[in-house]
């Protein structure tokens, strides 16, 4: 399987930078954004992104709003919520809105990688199904 292509969104720049380094070291392709608005921009420019790791508590556009926008504009992109404890309820709300899972900060790298892989697999499988379905449609269209 091709390594996951991830967008990391958090207003804490040092966290994003270090996390990016660690994920990159684990052969992931990582894009960085420091706010919800920026994340949407990045997604628009890079359609290959499989997965967004999204902090719930951010100034300006917060995690839930960003999630809603992502679900609307990029329905196939999976989202993993990152949260402090006080926002667990928000994360549950996020999962109800279609997020793949949630993780508490600071998170264990192995767990994160595991979830990232699972989410990517789900997304890729889904894309595969869509592609197959389209192929079938095209094949059936031929006489």
């Amino acid at each position, binding site marked *: 399987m091709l390594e996951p292509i991830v967008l990391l969104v958090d207003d*804490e720049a040092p966290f994003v930078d*270090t996390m990016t380094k*660690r994920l990159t*070291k684990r052969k992931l392709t990582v894009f960085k954004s420091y706010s919800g608005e920026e994340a949407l921009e990045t997604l628009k420019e890079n359609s290959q992104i499989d997965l967004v790791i999204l902090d719930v508590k951010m100034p300006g556009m917060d995690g839930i709003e960003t999630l809603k926008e992502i679900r609307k504009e990029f329905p196939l992109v999976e989202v993993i919520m990152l949260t*402090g*404890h*006080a926002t667990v309820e928000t994360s549950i709300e996020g999962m109800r809105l279609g997020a793949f899972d949630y993780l508490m*900060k*600071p998170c264990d*790298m192995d767990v994160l990688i595991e979830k990232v892989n699972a989410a990517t697999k789900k997304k890729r499988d889904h894309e595969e199904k869509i592609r197959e379905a389209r192929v079938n449609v095209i094949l059936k269209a031929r006489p």
Partner: protein
Amino acid sequence: MSKTKLPLSPYYRSLTLNMTVAIIVVSFIPVFLVGSTIYYNFYASYREKVYAHLEELVEKHRQQIDAFLVDKLADIRFLSRNLGYANLSDEAFLQSTLASLQRNYRPVFVDLGVVNGAGQQVAYAGPFKLTEAVYTETDWFQQAMNKEYVISDVFLGLRRLPHFIIAVKNTINGEPWILRATIDFVAFNDLVENIRVGETGFAYILNRRGEFQTKPLIDFVPSEGCYGHFFDCEKELNDGVTIAEREDDDGKENIYVTALLKDKDWLLVYRQESADAFSDLRRAQFISVVIFIVGGVSIIIMASMLSIRQVGRIKEADRAKELMNEQVIETGKLASIGELAAGIAHEINNPVAIMVEEAGWIQDLLEEEDFARSENLDEFERALKQINTQGKRCKEITHKLLSFARKTDARLQEFSINDLIEEVVSLSEQRAKYAKVIITPQLDASLPSIQASPSEMQQVFLNLINNAVDAMERQGGEIVVASRREKNQLVIEVRDTGPGIPPANIDRIFDPFYTTKPVGKGTGLGLSICYGIIKKMGGDISVDSTMDEGTTFVIKIPVREEHVG
């Protein structure tokens, strides 16, 4: 001083005083008004009655005395006219006439005498030797010569005994002569002396000069002249009975009832001490004053006792309020500390996350070959691991602080306790399965719904079930959550088959921050939160534990009547 009562502060003292005064004033005013109105009316009507009685008495006696005098005068006039000078001047005949008069009228007439125009007594019948007496100079003779008849004032006369005279003038051959009769003073006196009322009431008669015409019961000297100055001499006295009250020389209030007699010559005076005349009134007054005083004293005692008790209660309430205020402030303080802690915890969480990530990054880098040969590699790895571990510990702490400070929804809702228990059980089942614990609900389906905060109740049951699962984590076991109804209480039991709570700890399990879990595992707040929630609802939570057999938590929640059935 056996009682060690604290002295009241000035505020409560003045409150007590105000209350006492208010009660006394409010109680006294109606009592005083009603009492004085009734007393005044009674006084007026009683006085009227006494006056009327006395007036009637005096009037009756006046008529009687006047009738007596008129009778006697008529008798003498009859004798004078019918028997004539010739017969009467005969002393023997006069004697027999007196005897017959005395027979008919008892000894009212003391003597009879015939006086000629010169004042010389011509004939005399009676006990005294007055045959030759000359009356020329006496008042009554001079008056009788001018008038047809005269009734004299009482005087001592020649015989030196009090008496009075009825004299009737007649003429014979142009010469005036007078028939004179002496009226027995004792007989006349009886008429007046018989007027006796009460202890001090008596009557007497005065003449115009203020001299006694009868012997008064009590010896006293009336001031001279004009009926003893009873009335203003200038003023014409009316015929009727007059009543007046005035003070005596010795300071005693007296009632004087007076009536004129004998063609306004004499004054019949009835005198009685007011105190005696109104003795019934005085008694009523005394009784009412006694009642008033006794009532007043009891009102005062009651008022002060009542106020003291009321103020005591107010003071108690004030103190309770003060205490409650302090508690509210304390609670508010705790709440703001909680919020502060939550804020800090949240803020710390982010830097800790970054630190852990940085440590992770170094660890990642160490795995590269350049560092594999470093002799301190093991030390580096150990240090990074430690940073990671301590970072996780920080995370644990901040998460617990956050969960403690997190506000639960305390709004009341009506819901079924059974549904809530089932929900909590299903939430805990997954975790219980890993610990080889089976959770069995035994719910009474007929339970009424309750009014409470669902999220708080969830917290209670989740805490109890989690504790039970924790207790049985090693050997596994069973948890039974049973609900039933007892009278107007819902009883919910959470039973486990765990190792039980040692008796030494059982008294402290509801204390905040008391925990037997290893450091970093438990906050010691779970059960104290449960206790607080159940107590706030008016319920009760208790624990029963036997070592090696299990522990049972019993929660009792009151059911309000409107939710029954």
